[in-house]
């Protein structure tokens, strides 16, 4: 860890959560209304198809039991994708989290307004890698680690590499 400069400002880096009204506006554009409508139509349609298969299964078509399960799963998938897009849009509008996390040691003079989240410690090897060693896996892993470090709050599953 590098020592923190004394003038480190933690307050200005604390992101403010977006207002509810602002968020609602962002989800009420024509493109988003179309998405909401499509989601509702698809979910209702898929559930209707599922119910149709339930009636067919009750009528003696054994094959329909499987489809009666599959259609609700597809409907749930639609809701999942829709919800993920909503979350994505809301997160995109909010201010970016700071590239360097506010260290708790620097906040001795002014109490931090927000408790910094507990994150995993970053392990850095003490032994320098041999010069010229072209370890592709190690380089990949190092790139992954630096990406994680540059994107606090990101989950490992978000890694684009």
């Amino acid at each position: 860890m590098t020592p923190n400069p004394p003038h480190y400002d933690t307050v200005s880096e604390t992101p403010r959560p977006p207002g509810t009204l602002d968020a609602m506006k962002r989800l009420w554009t024509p493109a988003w209304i179309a998405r909401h409508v499509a989601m509702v139509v698809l979910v209702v349609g898929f559930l209707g198809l599922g119910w149709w298969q339930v009636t067919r299964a009750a009528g003696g078509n054994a094959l329909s039991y499987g489809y009666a399960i599959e259609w609700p799963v597809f409907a749930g998938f639609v809701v999942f994708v829709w919800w993920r897009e909503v979350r994505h849009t809301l997160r995109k509008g909010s201010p970016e989290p700071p590239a360097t996390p506010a260290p708790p040691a620097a906040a001795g003079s002014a109490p931090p307004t927000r408790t910094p989240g507990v994150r995993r410690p970053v392990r850095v090897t003490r032994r320098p890698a041999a010069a010229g060693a072209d370890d592709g896996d190690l380089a990949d892993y190092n790139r992954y680690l630096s990406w994680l470090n540059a994107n606090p709050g990101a989950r490992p599953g978000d890694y684009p590499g």
Partner: protein
Amino acid sequence: MGGALTRYRVIAWIVGVALVVLVLIGMPLKYLFDSPTVVAVVGTAHGWLYMLYLAATFDLSRRVNWPLQRMLLVMLAGTVPFVSFYAERRVSRWLTAGRQPRTPEPVAG
């Protein structure tokens, strides 16, 4: 990205073959020759495999940051016989053409 692309390609190929078998072999057998066995087996399997296809496509699109529309189009392409093969080729070309060479970069510290 490599693993997700491979998963997508494998399941896309399996679903595409199952769909072609279902449409070209199962349907004629069932409706022309009154023999529904192939449809019963392949149809059920295809339904469940298509779920895996959706999951793999979703995972891939999330990793490579596709827009929503492209993800939905690729998912829909898996429901059309033979078009799924074309979509798989197209997706693979998209993702491998723009791939940057893997140059290692040292991590600070």
